[in-house]
């Protein structure tokens, strides 16, 4: 029991540290992409900027709109933060560094991470504001339609490692990483696109579209509730990066350095790619996004599944 407690506290400490680091890193990466400096004055190179943001958000007055749906409004931020934190239970950081090696690891993570769409939808409905309602509706449609290609691309990996548990998937890639197989490369591509939509980032950030819906589903949230959405988004980003490293880039496998360092460096490399994509691409429109999911990604994922099956049974 004590071991579980220590593991839990360690994971929680890691999550908040990585969320803080990601917020700072995103602002610096986006600044340098736009040939400017980003936060500089708050601590050395703006390192204390996320802490300042957190302190300020703590002190903000918490406004609830008059006719808001009180319970739904109050619960929404928790639904946005708790699922990504729960998903950390099955992430393999190292050889034995895994909070709980579930034998249904990948299935558990997928199930949990699709719960946070309910949080966004509740935020959209609860804040009694037309813009956030539109944002909530869009997020529901988008995330549901991107679950299917994401799961299909995961199944191709599971077929290779013939086990759902994350540790076994990583061990299956001890000789060479999954990404080197051609059909795995295609699955990785489909996964990356679907994961971007899953987390409402970059070309698919229509639920909180800045230029159309003012601030999307969290228009009415201020202070700590808004910070919860902010942290939820970055923890979710870490989750999908961790899953992509475990599935395609050989988890914690690597020559000299200890496994944890390999795992974290690969994950943060994936996160950098997502940040890079976010600050360069325009946003897709709602119906183009849906058409792309159903007409392009899902067929490719099915074909890829068939090819993997044929390859394995050959």
């Amino acid at each position, binding site marked *: 029991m004590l071991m579980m407690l220590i593991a839990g506290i360690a994971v929680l400490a890691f999550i908040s540290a990585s969320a803080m680091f990601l917020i700072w890193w995103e602002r610096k990466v986006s600044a340098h*992409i*736009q*040939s400017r400096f980003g936060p500089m004055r708050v601590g050395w190179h703006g390192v204390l900027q996320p802490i300042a943001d957190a302190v300020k958000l703590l002190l903000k007055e918490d406004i609830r709109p008059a006719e808001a749906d009180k319970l739904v409004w109050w619960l929404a931020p928790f639904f946005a933060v708790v699922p990504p934190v729960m998903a950390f239970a099955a992430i393999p950081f190292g050889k034995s560094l895994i909070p709980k090696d579930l034998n249904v690891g990948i299935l558990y993570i997928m199930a949990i991470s699709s719960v946070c769409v309910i949080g966004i939808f509740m935020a959209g409905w609860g804040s009694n504001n037309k813009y956030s309602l539109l944002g909530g509706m869009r997020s529901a449609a988008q995330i549901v339609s991107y679950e299917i290609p994401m799961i299909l691309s995961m199944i191709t990996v599971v077929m290779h490692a013939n086990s759902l548990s994350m540790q076994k998937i990583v061990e299956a890639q001890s000789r060479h990483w999954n990404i080197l197989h051609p059909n795995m490369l295609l699955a990785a591509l489909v996964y990356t696109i679907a994961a971007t939509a899953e987390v409402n980032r970059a070309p698919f950030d229509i639920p909180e579209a800045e230029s*159309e819906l003012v601030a999307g589903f969290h228009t009415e949230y201020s202070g700590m509730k808004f910070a919860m959405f902010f942290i939820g988004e970055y923890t979710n980003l870490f989750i999908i990066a961790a899953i992509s490293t475990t599935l395609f880039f050989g988890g914690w496998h690597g020559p000299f350095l200890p496994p944890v360092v390999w795992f974290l460096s690969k994950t943060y490399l994936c996160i950098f790619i997502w940040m890079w994509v976010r600050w360069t691409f325009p*946003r897709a*429109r709602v119906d183009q996004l849906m058409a792309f999911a159903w007409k392009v990604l899902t067929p490719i994922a099915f074909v890829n599944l068939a090819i993997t099956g044929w390859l394995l049974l050959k």
Partner: protein
Amino acid sequence: MNTSQTKDICTEEFLINMGPQHPSTHGVLSLELKLDGEMIRDCTAHIGYLHRSMEKLAENRTYTQFIPYTDRLDYVASMNNNMGYVMAVEKLLNLEISDRAKYIRVIAAELNRIASHLIAIGTFAQDLGAFATPLFYCFREREKIIDIFDQICGNRLTYNYMRIGGVQFDLPKGIDEKIKKFIKYMRSKVDDYDWLLTYNTIFLARSKHIGLLPKDLAINYSVSGPNLRASGVKWDLRKDEPYLVYEKLEFDIPVGENGDSWDRYKVRLEEIRQSLKIVEQALGALPEGDPTVKIGRIHKPSPSEIYLRTENPRGELGFFIISDGSAYPYRLKIRSPSFSNLAVLPELVKGLKIADIVCILGSLDILMGETDR
């Protein structure tokens, strides 16, 4: 609220207010949208949130005192506004200005056209969701033009550089090397935009065939400037009614095919290249002489009325000035291009989605200071 009833599914339209404070309404414009889900059924535009009563004010200012106010009309292309107003008053006084002043005016106006188009392209890309990166690239180039203007007339945005009968200062010493260096730098940057934005698949998917403005509808709404040329009408005042020294300079008019948002963006991008060519030729043919003004600042034109229009980056800016012999204009009407360009919006938007109205508004390149006067 009509509710279309199909069997038992009942959808209801709801009213949404893209109010005066909205990230992508380019200033204080309020759009009232009647939405059926994401589909826009009807859109009415409410303007006047920046109505600063310029025309009432003009009746209490002498001709020279009104020049700084023209900077604040289309505050992104102040040089062109100054030039339009000052040429109208010169026509009223039928005053001849020195050749060097004409060339300096053309150089300043074309440089400001580039700066204005850069902002138009930057905000258009931002409205399509490429958050801030293209905008800050365009602002980085615009800062170079602003440095040139800073050196010429000492201000960043509201230049107040032109006077009735010439310009305020002569060009400073090393300015033509700086402009030549800028032209070379800008040419490579425009190719970058072509490579970065124009043929990007998401950018194309979002702006191609959105907001189709047919040729006759554009003329009927008296749309002008790049929006008209994007619909295939080859009409540019600098070529069709040449003023200053435009007939001596050789440049061509980019024209789009089917008048959608992408064409409007492409026409503006091409116009930057043409303006660079104009500035280069004008700089080469700059005559000697003294462009500054020697006559007094109080002008009392004989009672008459004139209407003069010039080619602004956003369209045709016209000044209808009626003088009654005193030092104050009796009536000064400003025909602003954004006013008519904006009138087209409700027509283009029916049946499209919210993301498209933001795209069309960005491509029409509206500026509220000029619309509301």
